[in-house]
């Protein structure tokens, strides 16, 4: 059975750490980094990458448009 796998790339230097993407992810993929970026923000990252379906929810709510989304159909 073909499974959908996804991944996101956060432009960590532009991420403002607003956390709006976190609740937007239906599969609770996203966490906030302990580290801060050059502007002092804790940026978002895939804390739970396996769960990502590439649904793009996070990307479309990200106010700063810093998330890119990738998606493949992967055979199990």
């Amino acid at each position, binding site marked *: 059975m073909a499974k959908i796998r996804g991944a996101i790339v956060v432009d960590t230097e532009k991420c*403002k750490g607003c956390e709006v993407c976190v609740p937007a992810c239906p599969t609770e993929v996203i966490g906030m980094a302990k580290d801060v970026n050059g*502007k*002092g*923000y804790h940026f978002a990252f895939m804390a739970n990458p396996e769960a990502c379906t590439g649904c793009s929810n996070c990307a479309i709510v990200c106010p700063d448009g810093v998330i890119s989304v990738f998606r493949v159909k992967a055979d199990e």
Partner: protein
Amino acid sequence: MTEEIIIAGFGGQGVLSMGKILAYSGIMQDQEVSWMPSYGPEMRGGTANVTVILSDERISSPYLTIFDTAVILNQQSMDKFEKSLKPGGTLIYDPNGISHHPTRKDINIYRIEGSRLAAEMGNTKIFNMVILGGFLAARPIVKIENVIEGLKKSLPERYHKLIPLNQEAITKGMDSLETVQTI
């Protein structure tokens, strides 16, 4: 006596209110004071700075480009204000987040681990009071009791219960100042 001070850091670090307490402290000992912030469209995370002058005379320009003392709390401010100190002036900084440390040889330099100490005290909001303590250790231009009076004046009544905590932070700051270089 006139002391011309710049306090500079990030927006949320309490730079403006630290300046305000300092200015109020001056008033408490009958000095002339001025407090002049940089102001701008609030782009959060941007830098904020305030020029504070305490003087025994009428203050002319509240806006300055060279200072006796600089309190520096982030890298941008270090880049901008290290060079604005008068020779013989005093630079006090929090090394947290600073990548390029001060290099001038003709000034006094002190460090105060404000962020770390505040975190240790379990309250990041008192960060600026720790810094103030450090400042006072380096530049004892106002008496501590006047600072406490200033604090009372600048805090709304309903926050007066926090004064002991602030006082503790100031003391902590005073005790924790590290000398990097004196000339």
